[in-house]
């Protein structure tokens, strides 16, 4: 995806290790806002 973005003219980089490495390094995270969540079907609803 980063490659596609660069092809489109964006200055894109990839974070090595992703969210796991970010978390391991003790960097701040936030809870995904409720309206950003994708609601898949569940049997409980």
């Amino acid at each position: 995806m980063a490659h596609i973005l660069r092809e489109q003219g964006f200055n894109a980089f990839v974070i090595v290790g992703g969210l796991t490495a970010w978390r391991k390094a003790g960097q701040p995270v936030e809870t995904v806002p409720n309206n950003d969540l994708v609601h898949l079907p569940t049997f409980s609803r």
Partner: protein
Amino acid sequence: MNEFLSLIARHGYSIIFATILAEAIGLPVPAALALVAGGAAAASGTLHAPVILALAVGAMLIGDSLLYVLGSRMGWGLLGFLCKVSSSPETCILRSAESFYKRGRATLLIAKFIPGVNSMAPPLAGSMRMPFAQFLGLDFAGVSFYVLAYGGVGFLFRDFLAVIARGFLAAGHLAEAVVVVATIAFVAYRLWLYRKYRIYRVVPRVQVMELANQLQSGDAEKILVVDVRSHGYYDAGATRILGSIRIEPNNLPQEIATLPRDKDLYLYCT
């Protein structure tokens, strides 16, 4: 095979229970064969049919319940993990969830007869928050059907047990061949993907601490951190890098139109 059958004769109940429990939690052991052998042992009077039935059903329900709890603990992460091999994980997750939602109850009734599905149905039911009582009821019906079917084969055709055992052995060899071919195909597919996307290695990479330092400096306003995970947005309480936004991988053209061109984009996944 013969050793397995003689084991059933000698250790009977404990072997049947352990074999079926092992298969129920996803290990590649011949539970169907154990049930056939158990049925034959019951027909010959070596073992008691009601005890075999109770142990077999109990072992499967215990194993399935453990997988159900695992699924409910892992949430959508489980489906995300399974969909990693898909060419479009996002689509795989959405379609699988919809499909199991529509057919999940019926699937639980026949899942035991379908290799692969037998181990996946209970954790999916857990992931999708099927009430435990409902899961247990459906699973009990499916498990009973399975145990009676294979146990019944052994009970009715005990004189043909050697033939049945040879059939299972042949089926086992076929299954092994299928697994080997599927593994080779998967490795070949990954190699093809690697070769196809080798060009992506030219995308510059940044270490976490390097980015963290930039965010704390005056450059922060020129930086946009972008979450490109194909899953991870399905469970309440899911987290992401502070201040990041999400790009929906399936809607890339539309998403690109909304991205600022005056900022550096730092992409991450799991």
